[in-house]
């Protein structure tokens, strides 16, 4: 299978402290990868390297490289704007813009290309369907996004990210602020999404990782301790630290 993302010896420093230690990982296309590990062990930092969102953190230094679809992300000529169109992100706390549902979803596409009314409607419906929220909002597309419930807002953010047609979707603990029903809905739609794109998901919830992902990476103190199929990592971990974590002995 083609590799969607190849990470080579990624090292990240925030000022003096080292957040990631020489992490390497190959992520296959059209799969769901869960990143687990205790708080503050570098999972989010790793995720944010994949779309260069770490550039916005003052004092962050990145060494090593990330290849997305065969193209180096950290090389000098990379267009960060185009990269972020191809590698989308959904955040921990839903963060819709204080605009209408329509304007939220179409925000991304409108940046990148001009669309006529018909095209706008098509993109809007398609994105909202893929995020499993079309039926709930189709009658109020011009209503403010802030009026939606937390779970709906998060699905809206997913729709917004999908609207620019990324190949890869990064999700940073997307369900941690949501109730179980909303969480279940999102886990379901992730299974649908992986048919077309690659999902990399940070999660604190091991059951979620076990349920929803094909591959799992365990991070501890900035190191990628183990990476393999979810089944193998949870049932037959190679490293003791992994075993301790997934059996709940710490974290």
């Amino acid at each position, binding site marked *: 299978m083609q590799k969607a993302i190849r990470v080579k010896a990624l090292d990240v420093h925030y000022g003096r402290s080292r957040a990631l230690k020489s992490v390497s990982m190959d992520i296959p296309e059209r799969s769901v990868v869960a990143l687990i590990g205790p708080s503050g062990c570098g999972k989010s930092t790793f995720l944010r390297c994949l779309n260069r969102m770490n550039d916005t953190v003052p004092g962050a230094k990145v060494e090593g490289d990330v290849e997305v679809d065969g193209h180096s992300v950290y090389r000098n000529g990379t*267009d960060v*704007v*185009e990269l972020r169109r191809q590698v989308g992100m959904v955040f921990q706390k839903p963060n819709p813009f204080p605009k209408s549902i329509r304007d939220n979803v179409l925000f991304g596409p409108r*940046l990148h*290309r001009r669309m006529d009314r018909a095209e706008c409607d098509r993109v809007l419906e398609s994105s909202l369907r893929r995020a499993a929220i079309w039926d709930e909002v189709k009658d109020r597309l011009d209503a403010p996004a802030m009026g939606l419930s937390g779970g709906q807002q998060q699905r809206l953010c997913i729709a917004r990210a999908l609207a620019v047609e990324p190949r890869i979707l990064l999700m940073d603990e997307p369900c941690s602020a949501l109730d179980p029903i909303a969480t279940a809905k999102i886990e379901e739609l992730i299974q649908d999404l992986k048919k077309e794109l690659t999902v990399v998901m940070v999660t604190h919830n091991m059951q979620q990782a076990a349920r929803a992902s094909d591959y799992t990476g365990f991070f501890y103190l900035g190191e990628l301790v183990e990476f393999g199929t979810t089944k193998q990592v949870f049932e037959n971990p190679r490293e003791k630290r992994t075993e301790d974590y997934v059996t709940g002995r710490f974290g």
Partner: protein
Amino acid sequence: MSRLARRHLAHRVATAACLALALVAVFPLVSVLWELVRHGADVVTWEFLTTPPALPLEPGGGIQHAILGTGVVVGLGTLMGAPLGLLIGAYLAESRGKRAATVRTVVDAMAGMPSIVAGLFAYAVVVAAVGFSGWAAASAYAVLMVPTVTRTTEEALRTVPQSYRDASLALGSPRWRTMLLVVLPAAWGGVLTGLLLGVARVAGETAPLVVTMIATPFVSTDPAHSLATLPMLIYDYGKSAYPKLNAQAWGAALVLILMVLALNILVRGMSALRERRLKG
């Protein structure tokens, strides 16, 4: 040019524009100070500050009368306005409910009063009674001062942690002693800052003076009649046809702005010091 390239270009252009606008924003203060120093620096001598005016066509003379007069009017205005502002601020800091909300709205409304309107009010009340006088000007200043002092006093009192008050009240101290011996000492820095801010605000106001006093060249500290003031003098001399007076207007303006800026910087310094002490 591709759309992407255009977007990147727009970003660079807009960033440059914002930086340029920031430079433009700095220009007025720099220009004002530059012009004042350029035209006024030679004029400001010790003699200038301590002698009364000479005749327009004679050389020399100074703005002693205006400095004295400004001191009198600002001083009286502060004496009239500051205590009221302090009390209203204390009231707002300790009260809740609809009455307090009304008072706050009123004070907010007064804060926006154009200074010339305060002058007209003082004219209608004080000048009508005792004629153009320092009292009238001071009254206008007082009216302008009250909202500023009220707001800053209220803020300063509110920053005193409720636990101080609770501790004092729990020990049996009545409200008024709590305020006097516990809250006020804790907040006095902020209150003083507010007072100075109020003074700085009115010290440069000219419009109320124009309608409550007549420009006079005499040295006097008697508020029952018109007094000379710095702002009025600057206005008068600035309009004048005599070049010596024009030059002296610049000197007086330089003196005024230095006074006001010094007060402002003092206030900021005090606030910054207090904040640093609070943060430990």
